[in-house]
C-alpha cells in the first residue's frame, strides 16, 4: 500500500514540469561546480605530487559537489514537497485516501517514500557525475560511500520536514516557505552560536553533514538524522489524525 501511494506521488512529480526543472537546475549547478573544481585540481596537480599523502580527486572534486548538492537540495526539496499533502487538501482529494482502507501512517510513509525515491534519483545523477572521474583517474570508494550515505540521510531529513509542513496547511506556498525557513535555519544554526559547546549545535545539520564529507562514519550522526526524519514523519501522522478528529 505504501508503495502504491509512493508510485502515485512519483508519477505526479514527473507529470509536472516542476520536477524536471528542479532536476535540470541541480545538474547544471553541480556540473558547473564539477568543471571548476576539476580545473583547479589540474592546476594544482603538480604541487600535489610533491606531498607525502596528497588529497585525491575524490576529496578535491567530488566532495565539494556533495557539499553543494546539500545546499541546492535545501532549496529544491520545499518546491517538491509542498504539494504532497497541501494540494490534496486544497483539491479535496485527501478524502480519496482517507476513505480508502489505509492508516494515516501508510499515507504519510507513502508520500515520504515517493518524494525520497525522487531525491535518490538526483543522488544517482550526482554519482554518475562522480563516476565520470574514472575517465582520467581513480576514486576513493570509501569516501564516496560516506558522501552518498550522508547525502541520502540528509535528503531523507529534508523530505520529512517537507512532508510535515505540507501536512500543516492547505496552501502549497505556505508549506514551501515553512520548509525552506526551517531547513535553512537548522543548516545555519552553527553560525548563531559562538560557544562551541552550545547544545543548539547538536541540531545544526551542517555539522552532521560535515563529518560525512570528511569520510567519517559517526553513528551519532546517523542516529541523529534517522531520528530527525522519524520525528517529523510522526508529527505529520499526528497532524493528519488531528484533521480527522477535528477541533
Amino acid at each position: 500500500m505504501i508503495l502504491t501511494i509512493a508510485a502515485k506521488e512519483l508519477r505526479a512529480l514527473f507529470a509536472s514540469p516542476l520536477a524536471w526543472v528542479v532536476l535540470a537546475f541541480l545538474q547544471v549547478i553541480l556540473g558547473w561546480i564539477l568543471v571548476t573544481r576539476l580545473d583547479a585540481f589540474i592546476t594544482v596537480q603538480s604541487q600535489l605530487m610533491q606531498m607525502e599523502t596528497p588529497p585525491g580527486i575524490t576529496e578535491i572534486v567530488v566532495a565539494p559537489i556533495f557539499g553543494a548538492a546539500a545546499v541546492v537540495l535545501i532549496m529544491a526539496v520545499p518546491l517538491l514537497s509542498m504539494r504532497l499533502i497541501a494540494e490534496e487538501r486544497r483539491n479535496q482529494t485527501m478524502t480519496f485516501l482517507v476513505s480508502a482502507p489505509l492508516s494515516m501512517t501508510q499515507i504519510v510513509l507513502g508520500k515520504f517514500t515517493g518524494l525520497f525515491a525522487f531525491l535518490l534519483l538526483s543522488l544517482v545523477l550526482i554519482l554518475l557525475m562522480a563516476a565520470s572521474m574514472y575517465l582520467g583517474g581513480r576514486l576513493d570508494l570509501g569516501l564516496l560511500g560516506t558522501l552518498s550515505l550522508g547525502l541520502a540521510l540528509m535528503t531523507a531529513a529534508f523530505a520529512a520536514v517537507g512532508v510535515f509542513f505540507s501536512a500543516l496547511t492547505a496552501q502549497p506556498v505556505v508549506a514551501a516557505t515553512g520548509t525552506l525557513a526551517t531547513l535553512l535555519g537548522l543548516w545555519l544554526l552553527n553560525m548563531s552560536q559562538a560557544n562551541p559547546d552550545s547544545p543548539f549545535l547538536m541540531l545544526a545539520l551542517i555539522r552532521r553533514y560535515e563529518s560525512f564529507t570528511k569520510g567519517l562514519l559517526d553513528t551519532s550522526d546517523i542516529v541523529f538524522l534517522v531520528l530527525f526524519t522519524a520525528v517529523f514523519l510522526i508529527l505529520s501522522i499526528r497532524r493528519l489524525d488531528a484533521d480527522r478528529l477535528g477541533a
Partner: protein
Amino acid sequence: MTATDENLTVRATALTRQFGKRVAVNEVNLTLARGEVLGFLGPNGAGKTTTMQMITGNLAPSAGQVEICGVDMLERPRDAKARIGYLPETPPLYRDLTVNEFLALAARLHRVPRKQVGAAVDTARARCGLTDVGQRLIGTLSKGYQQRVGIAQAIIHNPDVVILDEPTVGLDPNQIRDIRALIRELGGQHSVILSTHILPEVEQVCDRVQIMHKGSLVFNDTIAGLRHFRGGTLMLGLRQAPAVEEIAAVPGVAHVEVVGPASDGMFRVEPEKGADPIDALVARAAERGWRLSHVAPAASHIEDVFVQLTQREEAA
C-alpha cells in the same frame, strides 16, 4: 426496521459531532439493510455531509458508534473502510491521471488483488458508462463524466455500502437521469446511501427516507410512508374569500396562509394539534357566504412534507 442484524450493512448509533460549541449532528441513528437505497434528505447545512463523513471514517464522531457490516469504524477503521465506497460532495479526482490510471489506483488502494485490477476497472467503467473515455485525462472530461468517474471509484472494489453525497448536483437533465438509473441499479447489489436535497430524486430512486434538520433526524420511513404522511393540513378554496384573519378565527384553525394569487381564493389551513376543523370551516363558509369550492386534505406532496418537517420548529 425489521431487518435482522446480519442483514444490516450500516448501523450508526447516537452519532454526535460538535464543532466547538456548535452541535452539527445530534444523536443521529441510522440503519441500512442490504440492497436498500436510503435517501438522506435535508436542507443545506442540516448536517448530512458531516454525518456521511462520520460514517465513512473521514471525521471522528464526538460521541456515538458506527458499524459497517458489524465492523466497528473506530476500532478497526481499515477493515470497515474496505467495505465502503464513498463519493464526497466534490469528487476526489486526480486531474492529471487518465480514467484508467485513476481507477486502477483506486482499486489497488481498496485492496483489489493486483491480478484482478484490470477486470475491476473494466467492470466499473462499463457500469458507469465510461468505456469510451478510459484513456482521457480526468481533467479534460466534462462535469458529468467526472461525476461518473467519481461513482466508478466508489464501486470499483464492489463494496457492501456505497455512499453518495449529492451525486447529481450540477449535471444536465439527461446526465441526471443516467446517474439515477445507475444508482437504482446499484441498489440491487450494494446498499446505497444517497444524500440530496432534491426531492423527486428520492421519490424515484430510494426505498426509504431519512430527513435531517438542524443536526437531528426528524423523519425516518419508507417512500410510501412519506407519501402518506400528512400533518392534517387542509386545502381550502373559496370563491368569495374573506380576509385571512376571518378564516383563522374558525375554532380549531391554527394558521392560515394564502396559496397562489389572491384571486384564486386558495388557502392552506393548518389545524391546531389534534383538531379537525373541516366541519367548522364548512359551516362558517355557508353561514358567511364564502362560497366554498374546495376543501380537502393537502395533497401530501413530498415537498410539502419536507417543508412541514423542516419548518415545524419555526412555526411553533
